[in-house]
């Protein structure tokens, strides 16, 4: 599911427990006493080794001319040839800027809306109304990407869709939105907002529920109206959460998932809808150019890693707390 990333950072802020001094023989003693724990952990560790760490080693084929018969290790080294092929390809700038712009747009659009939703919900006194809005806006998160994209295609369809009925009603011309490259990003981003706003609001609502009631009392005594209360009490209270979510989104800005972009693609909108993930799939799985696809993927992975590490470092300096 490439839907809204769960919020891993929130758990990752866990403080490491006090370090125990390594003593000689500690491992042996622990293994003897708790051998069952060490046996228990083996299968999942084998899983991580096999499906996460072996692929990292396999990524050397980005620097080789992989051929099936010779295998990964016997294929000849070619240095940076595949990276040069990628960088000199006109698709390079296209896919990198498409990925970046799509992600940036999604970040800007989908970041403030859940906050507004949560702040508004927090003002509502009717429990029934509040619960209803929450339940309904949360629901699309559980709908699959395939279904959301199909709904978007049907609703935007120039002949039979809901939107064309609206525009037709007001006498406006109908357009085939999905055939226009310019609309790909709007459709991608606003379906994303539609699908995840309610889900993302939950985390802010929890933060708002934890606000010290004394602060509201104080605001009341000072004669603050609702808007001032939101501005001076609510917003500062959820700021730490906002910062963590923002850091996480910025850190993963080049890691746009494959699933949705691929579904929304058609030959007419490729100039904006081809992103790194879909491009890797096409050269790797469809054209079977394994080495080039790996080089492109590796390029993206390294950028993601660097982004995450630098965002974390900046956050540590500015806010005093990082993700790890």
């Amino acid at each position, binding site marked *: 599911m490439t839907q809204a990333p769960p919020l891993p950072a929130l758990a990752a802020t866990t403080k490491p427990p006090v370090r125990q001094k390594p003593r000689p023989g500690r491992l042996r003693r622990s293994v003897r006493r708790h051998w069952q724990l060490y046996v228990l952990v083996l299968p999942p560790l084998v899983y991580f080794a096999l499906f996460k760490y072996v692929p990292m080693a*396999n990524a050397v084929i980005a620097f080789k001319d992989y051929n099936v018969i010779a295998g990964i290790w016997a294929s000849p080294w070619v240095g940076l040839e595949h990276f040069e092929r990628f960088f000199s390809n006109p698709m390079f700038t296209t896919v990198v800027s498409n990925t970046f712009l799509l992600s940036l747009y999604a970040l800007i659009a989908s970041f403030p809306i859940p906050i507004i939703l949560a702040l508004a919900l927090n003002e509502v006194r009717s429990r029934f109304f509040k619960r209803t809005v929450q339940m309904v806006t949360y629901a699309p998160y559980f709908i699959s990407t*395939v279904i959301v994209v199909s709904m978007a*295609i049907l609703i935007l369809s120039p002949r039979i869709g809901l939107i064309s009925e609206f525009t037709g009603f007001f006498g406006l011309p109908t357009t085939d939105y999905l055939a226009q490259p310019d609309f790909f990003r709007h459709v991608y981003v606003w379906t994303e907002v539609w699908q995840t706003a309610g889900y993302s609001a939950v985390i802010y609502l929890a933060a708002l529920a934890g606000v010290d009631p004394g602060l509201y009392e104080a605001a009341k005594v000072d004669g603050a109206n609702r808007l001032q209360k939101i501005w001076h009490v609510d917003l500062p209270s959820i700021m730490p959460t906002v910062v963590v979510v923002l850091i996480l989104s910025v850190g993963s800005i080049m890691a746009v998932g494959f699933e949705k972009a691929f579904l929304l693609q058609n030959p007419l909108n490729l100039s904006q809808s081809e992103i790194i993930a879909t491009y890797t799939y096409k050269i790797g799985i469809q054209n079977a150019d394994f080495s080039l696809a790996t080089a492109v993927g590796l390029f993206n992975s390294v950028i993601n890693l660097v982004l995450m590490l630098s965002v974390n470092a900046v956050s540590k300096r500015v806010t005093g707390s990082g993700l790890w």
Partner: protein
Amino acid sequence: MDRFFLVGVYILLVTFLLVVLLPLWYIVVSSFSSPAAVSAGRVFLWPVDFTLRGYQVALSSPQILTGFANSMIYTVVGTAISVTLTVMLAYPLSRADFVGRKVLTGAVVFTMLFAGGLIPTYLVVQAMGMLDTRWALLIPNAVAVWPAILAITYFRTAIPDELREAGEIDGASDLRILWKVVLPLAGPMLAVIALMYAIVQWNSYFDALIYLRDDSLYPLQLVLRNILILNNDAGGDATSALERQQLANLLKYSLIVVSTVPMMLIYPFVARYFTKGLLLGAVKG
């Protein structure tokens, strides 16, 4: 001033409500309308020429039924495998007396930051002979880092150490303590991670797209993609080309409803746990 503000708040929230509901409602009413009305774009807020044809075709299509059955298998078996492996990983890593805990946790978390990529992973799956088998959807993504972190945190903070120590004094082994003492107390957390895995498994199509060729193994989402987005024929009893086209249009709406209803039925019961899980990691840190 405050009263106007509150009115504004309610207007805003009702707008949110409508923006989410309207598309869903439109799909539902279209699915109950006649093929001709749907294709002519005459449906808006209420079914036109009420009919169940779309549902008849959707529920009698062998592709869709196979996809549904496959997805059930992948979701049930996959979730069982995922939860088991996650507990096996998380419990030892949550124990302070497990030597190497920090290094191993670091190694697990690192996979969230850096990955070998699509093709290198594909090569592993291929080398293990999993291509074009059900295993390809069950094993390569069996353990996710986020549920594992959640489980570790839960084991460490929500299960009192005294209980484990009492068990040890009684001479129970670690496995027995895990089974008899720890897991019975971890119900809410197990529910949360099972749901996370189940929803991902039920909703994803990417692994099936790259690892499977044999369409009798396709999960529902891949079947849906072929019909809804690639416009593959799903069958039906239409005779003329026009009728076939109209029925194909209607079928899309019915299919969306059919495949989403199971999720929408369980979601209100699930959402509570899901919210809890989301906050578990946040608050318990």
